[in-house]
């Protein structure tokens, strides 16, 4: 009896020592903060996903080189969510079950975001996107945040610009994707609310290369202006080229895609004067220029600068919140931090999140494409005219 209890005592003491040692060790040398990243690095959204991953990696390298967050490094675990809901769900489960992350940065495709968001909401995992723009995401839940502007805001601003420019009869052509369709729909709604009239509307599936039939039909309605909403740069550039070839010389308005680098190469001189309404980096923002220069130094190219900056800012916001919570497993603390935070970074000054996790304090800009002779790699082929008017 006596011996047994002594043994038991020794056993308990040993266990206690082991527990203290284990906990002590854990306190002493903590591993890096582990953050999940879900982007469409293959498939339809490849350009966006790749830029986003590279921008995030750039930010992480900078943070780690500067000594990490309170001495702890930051580590990204990248998963491919492709551009559809099912792959996003498997990627999400891999990140949360196998890697046990509680904070996920992504995704770049709205469809992938909407696929994984219900799970994240149910399990209390934060999803924080810099690129997804589908208006539905606003309603996706308490743990879902984004710095990207909803398509609804792009559309409203586009409608205002059109009206302010004296356009009354508008023709639209859009790619049948969630993003392009969202832009077309909200633009039309705002434009009609102001009193404008849609005289022709066409849509085309992705991968279309010949738009002449649809454009001829549109032009026969004699619009004051043409609005293009595209998701693939190739189609946006081709439309601009073909509509000019058909003899149309009126104003062209677009979302950001038809004035991307590839699109401008396709369209050439035809694109001169095309106006795009989109979130864009402020040329006066020194931080933005610094980030673009760093990105170019690291990867030798720059594309989609706003999305690049948005993804980059996400990492710094994440780092700031991790500094406060000190725990990458504390999703609730991280969420509360996001609701409270006001941030100045690459994509804007003093922006924050509203109660739906939507970004406030950022606005769209009006861009105008320059003649071919004036296009350089630095200016991206366009100049910023100013902020979109509000009504």
């Amino acid at each position: 009896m006596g011996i047994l209890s002594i043994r038991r005592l020794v056993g308990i003491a040993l266990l206690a020592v082991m527990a203290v040692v284990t906990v002590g060790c854990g306190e002493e040398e903590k591993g890096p903060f582990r953050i999940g990243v879900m982007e469409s690095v293959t498939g339809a959204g490849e350009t966006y996903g790749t830029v986003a991953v590279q921008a995030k990696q750039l930010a992480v390298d900078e943070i780690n080189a500067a000594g990490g967050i309170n001495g702890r490094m930051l580590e990204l675990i990248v998963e491919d969510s492709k551009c559809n809901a099912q792959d996003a769900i498997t990627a999400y489960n891999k990140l949360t079950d196998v890697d046990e992350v509680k904070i996920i940065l992504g995704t770049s495709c709205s469809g992938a975001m909407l696929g994984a968001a219900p799970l994240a909401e149910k399990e209390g995992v934060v999803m924080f996107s810099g690129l997804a723009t589908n208006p539905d995401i606003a309603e996706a839940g308490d743990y879902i945040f984004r710095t990207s502007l909803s398509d609804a805001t792009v559309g409203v601003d586009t409608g205002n610009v059109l009206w302010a420019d004296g356009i009354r009869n508008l023709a639209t052509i859009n790619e049948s994707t969630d993003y392009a369709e969202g832009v077309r729909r909200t633009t039309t709604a705002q434009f009609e609310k102001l009193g404008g009239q849609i005289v022709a509307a066409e849509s085309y599936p992705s991968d279309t290369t010949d738009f002449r039939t649809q454009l001829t039909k549109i032009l026969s309605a004699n619009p004051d202006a043409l609005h293009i909403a595209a998701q693939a740069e190739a189609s946006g550039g081709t439309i601009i080229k073909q509509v000019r070839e058909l003899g149309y010389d009126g104003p062209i308005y677009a979302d950001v895609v038809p004035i991307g680098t590839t699109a401008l190469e396709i369209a050439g001189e035809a694109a001169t004067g095309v106006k795009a309404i989109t979130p864009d980096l402020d040329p006066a923002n020194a931080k933005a220029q610094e980030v673009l220069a760093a990105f170019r130094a690291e990867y030798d190219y720059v594309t989609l600068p706003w999305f690049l900056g948005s993804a980059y800012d996400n990492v710094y916001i994440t780092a700031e919140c991790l500094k406060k919570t000190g725990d990458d497993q504390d999703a609730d603390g991280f969420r509360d931090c996001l609701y409270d935070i006001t941030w100045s970074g690459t994509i804007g000054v003093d922006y924050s999140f509203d109660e739906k996790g939507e970004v406030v304090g950022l606005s769209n800009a009006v861009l105008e494409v320059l003649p071919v002779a004036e296009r350089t790699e630095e200016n991206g082929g366009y100049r910023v005219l100013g902020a979109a008017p509000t009504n």
Partner: protein
Amino acid sequence: MSIATGALRNIQDVARDPRSWWQRSKGNIELWANLIVIGWALAFMLWRGGGFAITVGSVFAIWAILAVSLNLVVGYTGLLSVGHIGFFGIGAYAMAVLSSNASYEQLRTEAIPTFGWPFFAALPFSVILAGLVALVVGVAFNRFRDDIYVLVSFGFAVIAFTTFLSWRNLTRGAFGIHEIARPAIGSWVFEEELEFLALLLVFLGLVVLIAWLIVTSSFGRVLTAIREDEQAIAVFGYHTTHYKLAIWVISAMMAGLAGALLASWSTFIDPNSFVLLESVLLVSIVILGGLASIWGSLLGALAFVMLEEGMRFVPFLPSEFIGQIRQVILGILLVLLMLFRPQGLVGRFKL
């Protein structure tokens, strides 16, 4: 049935005389393929455990139903269809539209009518709708054979995708449909992923049973005869078109079932899940597993899902192009497999 008795006989053989069993089994590629894929899957699940294995299991079950259904048409009857993803999508969209509870009023995107049916009411409707569409399409398809059949089924897949994308008043187009209902029996909702996996496996078992009954019946023998020589079997007085139409509709209904299950499993669908590429992947699963073999389709789906998800664990890749490298490795593995085993893992014949 036959698998179970076969396995039992194998175990008895090994126990009685291990050396001669080894001599006999050494060159049996089928056996080794089975053991390797299944052993790999088990090791993977034990290693990673938990929730991710359940997700992978669910994805496997859905692809397996699809693969078995397609094998009935491609493997047994010899009609190379790449349009099956269309029926998959029809089943998914029928389930989504009928059972979604989402209200879109507060959104600035388009709204569609909500019916709010429970899962088990929408399920038979989805399956029957896929069957009806297959009946109409099949009547036309029966006029074509061989290469042309591939082309018209390709056309069907494209039309189906475009319909999902463009019929905005019903499918919300590219926005997709969310809040699709999870199955519920009384007050018991299949909320947990494990419960849903169990349900999926029950349906998979049902599909395998039906497929097995078909291929072992006289009906199944006529299908095989059509594959080997359609004119010869027609000479014996069989209306081959009726047989082809019947198996086409049955197969499409199974694909519709898989689609309905997918919609309920993921609770969100958009047209991106039903692109032609997925259809091509499906055909490669069937060929990878083995034509005219139900067991092969199960194995093919397992191997494919494990390859794709296993790729997530390939170490030492820089994060910037991790996705692309995975795709390349997957492609190379498929090419190698076809090079050295063109009849698939356990298949009986090649295309």
